[in-house]
């Protein structure tokens, strides 16, 4: 177990808390955001968007806009009907899935508020905005479809002609009937995953130029490489004529893992007008039209013995797809399918997910993507089991989790967890939290009838990171692989360029990849530059999402460095006049075994290949190397999070008194970055528990179009966090790393809600729908008092 402190700095590159290279431009305002780009003659695009959740378009007249001085062009969807194609869905999860056509600009029907129906192109952004009002669109309103629970009824209006069901995906392992029949304890709960808005701080922006049929597209995207392929497929423009650049990108959280209407149309407009174009969204436009996250109803059922041993697990999901399937929309709830079983041992498991269309913004990846939903439901119901049995929530988990000596362990969901130590993480978390003392205080406050009640929330979790073994993705019908690419270029002056297919947008790859290469090659950290985010510079990549970059992309960097060393060794052997098997490499230097004074540095070898005067016969004058790494397995970070809430039972106000996160992310390249990722993840997970929700009214209008309405938390809304790590290296990759980007988000939401429910359990309350606003908490307390459902203190609570 490692307890890190900033005073204890390892001297090796791996594990060293280096402040980031990226910061030099970020803290001084020299960042290159897409919206900064100004090209000669560049025009500005703005979109006319549907004010209706569902309507037939009967007429679009752009002629008024064309009369506005400064407007260069204006188009309806029909004007691009022949070339705009359909936005892609790369994850047809079942053979009979319904994937409706999704034109970038609607041509005959709109299916969510904010869907683009026309566009205006003008010399400046203000004129483009002015001219929107001069576009006339006639709509014939159609009934909206807003509740996925009734959308599958025969009587429901249809979002698409084919109906409101997109797919049903099932998984089963073990004898579920046997697990449930005669089980002494069966608990069933329904949980709501509210709709969320990812809210990266940088709004989306796109710039596109088309010169001689060759396109350069700058976009605030997480996925320049995937985007390039998809743009070629959607538009028919040859892939070799498309260059995609993701300059500095201001956050993503999954929301920029997308192929958007605006990107496609920017290309088509640049081609049609022969001028470069730019589009930058406003925040309210973004809240409407950046894909949303989560939005599920979860029915979860467990069977257990009286001693708490788990037998069976059954999960039935309704997942709101929104109006269309976007890049990975239908796959998101399925990523959770492998995580409901969590760290526990089961006899049988069944999972069913039904994807439903509604007239809302499509959902897609948001930090955690399926795994937070799964972890929430299982960790909430584990607390219900503990209450039912009258056992401590940590105790009931411990009776069921995979013990550290049982790894590798193949779960009921079919994944093989390579490593973990749930005992160690839990012990450390208990200690930092002061678990026993807080339980004692809770008892005292319950007994004294304190109006401010204390709740303790537990969340033990794991997740699957490092998306993904390509074969597994293939078996799940995903349209691409899960590998990552890197190349290492040794420059004549001894400096190094690391080219990566990962596409950082805040994660700090420039720093972390430099540490990996510095460690392996023995060159100074400062001598390494990391290049990324431009398909011309970094031609191969699968980009950044799903906590994959270090476990796949970082390992590719490590692998490319190995190849550099192997190639250099052949040349070193010739220059040092000793056979390769007698050449050692350490800390950047080749030496002859037994004659350590005779050396060549790897920089010497790089220079030798530049001159190429004295290379052995048949050896190419380069030690540059590529590696493409396809993981054999996912990685499985885990941890134990504990949250203490204080709830004013008179006002319903919830405040987090303390939060302890002990995570095991395997080996760590840079603890500063890891800690930062955990902090940010916690904030987003806590925000789901307490603050955030995308709310549509009964007409299908989004009413949370600003950050203030959506309740994006500020510093004053969030607690300080206590974080620590245990360190159980992954055995499935050479760096022993596991991924950290989503851990905090996955673990924290159930920890907070469990703490709230724990505080209120003596009142007979066993759930509060998220976000747990003061009003909802207060109403739950009132309802319980009016119904007299309170139980005696210490009682496990009602079923």
């Amino acid at each position, binding site marked *: 177990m490692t307890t890190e402190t900033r005073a204890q700095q390892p001297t090796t590159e791996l594990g060293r808390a280096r*402040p980031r290279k990226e910061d030099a431009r970020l803290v001084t305002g020299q960042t290159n955001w897409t919206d900064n780009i100004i090209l000669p003659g560049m025009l500005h695009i703005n979109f006319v968007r549907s004010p209706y959740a569902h309507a037939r378009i009967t007429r679009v007249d752009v002629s008024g806009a064309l009369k506005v001085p400064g407007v260069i062009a204006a188009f309806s969807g029909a004007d691009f009907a022949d070339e705009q194609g359909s936005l892609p869905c790369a994850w047809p999860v079942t053979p009979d899935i319904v994937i409706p056509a999704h034109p970038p600009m609607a041509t005959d029907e709109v299916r969510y508020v904010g869907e683009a129906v026309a566009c205006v192109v003008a010399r400046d952004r203000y004129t483009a905005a002015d001219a929107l009002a001069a576009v006339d669109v006639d709509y014939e309103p159609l009934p909206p479809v807003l509740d996925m629970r009734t959308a599958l009824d025969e009587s429901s209006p249809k979002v698409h002609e084919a109906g409101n069901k997109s797919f049903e995906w099932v998984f089963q392992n073990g004898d579920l009937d046997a697990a449930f029949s005669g089980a002494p304890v069966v608990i069933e709960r329904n949980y709501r995953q509210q709709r969320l808005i990812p809210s990266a701080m940088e709004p989306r922006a796109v710039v596109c130029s088309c010169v001689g049929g060759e396109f350069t597209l700058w976009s605030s995207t997480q996925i320049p490489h995937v985007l390039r392929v998809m743009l070629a497929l959607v538009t028919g423009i040859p892939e070799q004529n498309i260059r995609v650049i993701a300059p500095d990108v201001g956050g993503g959280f999954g929301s920029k893992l997308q192929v958007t209407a605006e990107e496609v149309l920017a290309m088509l407009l640049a081609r049609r007008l022969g001028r470069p174009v730019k589009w930058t969204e406003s925040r309210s436009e973004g809240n409407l039209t950046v894909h949303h996250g989560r939005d599920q109803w979860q029915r979860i059922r467990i069977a257990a013995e009286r001693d708490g041993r788990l037998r069976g697990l059954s999960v039935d999901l309704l997942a709101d797809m929104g109006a269309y399937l976007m890049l990975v929309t239908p796959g998101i709830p399925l990523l959770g399918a492998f995580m409901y079983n969590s760290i526990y041992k089961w006899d049988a498991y069944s999972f069913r997910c039904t994807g439903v269309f509604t007239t809302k913004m499509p959902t897609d990846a948001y930090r955690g993507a399926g795994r937070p939903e799964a972890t929430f439901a299982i960790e909430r119901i584990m607390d219900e089991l503990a209450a039912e049995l009258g056992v401590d929530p940590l105790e009931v988990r411990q009776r069921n989790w995979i013990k550290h000596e049982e790894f590798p362990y193949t779960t009921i969901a079919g994944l093989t967890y390579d490593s973990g130590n749930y005992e160690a993480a839990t012990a450390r978390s208990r200690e930092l939290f002061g678990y026993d003392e807080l339980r004692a205080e809770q008892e005292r406050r319950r007994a004294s009838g304190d109006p401010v009640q204390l709740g303790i929330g537990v969340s033990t979790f794991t997740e699957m990171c490092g998306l993904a073994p390509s074969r597994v993705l293939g078996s799940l019908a995903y349209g691409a692989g899960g590998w990552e690419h890197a190349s290492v270029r040794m420059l004549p002056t001894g400096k190094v360029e690391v080219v990566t297919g990962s596409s950082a947008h805040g994660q700090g790859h420039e720093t972390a990849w430099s540490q990996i290469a510095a460690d392996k090659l023995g060159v100074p950290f400062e001598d390494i530059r990391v290049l990324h985010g431009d398909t011309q510079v970094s031609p191969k990549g699968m980009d950044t999402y799903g906590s994959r970059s270090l476990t796949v992309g970082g390992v590719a960097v490590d692998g490319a460095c190995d190849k550099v060393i192997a190639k250099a060794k052949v040349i070193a052997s010739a220059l040092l006049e000793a056979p390769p098997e007698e050449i050692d490499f350490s800390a950047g230097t080749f030496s002859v075994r037994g004659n350590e004074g005779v050396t060549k540095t790897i920089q010497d070898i790089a220079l030798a290949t530049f001159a190429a005067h004295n290379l052995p016969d048949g050896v190419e004058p380069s030690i540059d190397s590529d590696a493409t790494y396809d993981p054999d397995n996912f990685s499985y970070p885990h941890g134990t999070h504990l949250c203490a809430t204080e709830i004013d039972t008179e006002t319903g106000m919830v405040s987090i008194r303390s939060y302890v996160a002990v995570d095991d992310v395997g080996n760590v390249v840079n603890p500063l970055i890891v800690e930062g990722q955990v902090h940010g993840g916690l904030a987003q997970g806590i925000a789901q528990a307490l603050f955030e929700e995308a709310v549509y009214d009964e007409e299908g209008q989004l009413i949370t179009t600003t950050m203030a309405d959506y309740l994006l938390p500020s*510093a004053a809304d969030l607690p300080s966090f206590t974080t620590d790590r245990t360190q159980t290296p992954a055995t499935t990759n050479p760096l022993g790393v596991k991924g950290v980007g989503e851990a905090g988000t996955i673990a924290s939401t159930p920890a907070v809600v469990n703490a709230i429910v724990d505080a209120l359990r003596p009142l007979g309350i066993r759930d509060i729908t998220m976000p747990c606003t003061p009003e909802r908490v207060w109403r739950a307390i009132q309802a319980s008092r009016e119904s007299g459902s309170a139980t005696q203190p210490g009682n496990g609570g009602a079923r």
Partner: protein
Amino acid sequence: MTRISVEVDGVRYEDDVEPRLLLVHYLRERVGKTGTPVGCDTSNCGACTVHLNGESVKSCSVLAVQADGSKITTIEGLANGEWHPLQQAFHTEHALQCGYCTPGMIMAAADLLRENPHPSDQEIREGLEGNLCRCTGYENIVRAVRRAAVAGVTTA
């Protein structure tokens, strides 16, 4: 069009602007100060915070014409030969990830420390309430401002 004269990061500019032009767009698109980004259109996020005559303002909520005759400092003008102690503290404490909120956060923090040179953690949190960050969970931002405060930063 209205003629304005402003000093931005130590350089005087005279420009004709539309009366409705927002200060942030003037700074970004006319003066080229793209270090100050736009994060929202409803003055919630604070990413566009600059100093106007020494006090922090959200430059999306100020018209360029309102800034006529004033002295503006952006994130690009904060360093004086070497990094401002807040820039250094944000770097040291890893108080930024994507960095989009960082210019506004640093400018707001500088103003906070000007008014309250020794804030408590809670005062830092409340003082920065108008600046939203989606990456850091604020923990390291609080640490960075505390570090800069200990170093005795009181002015930009």
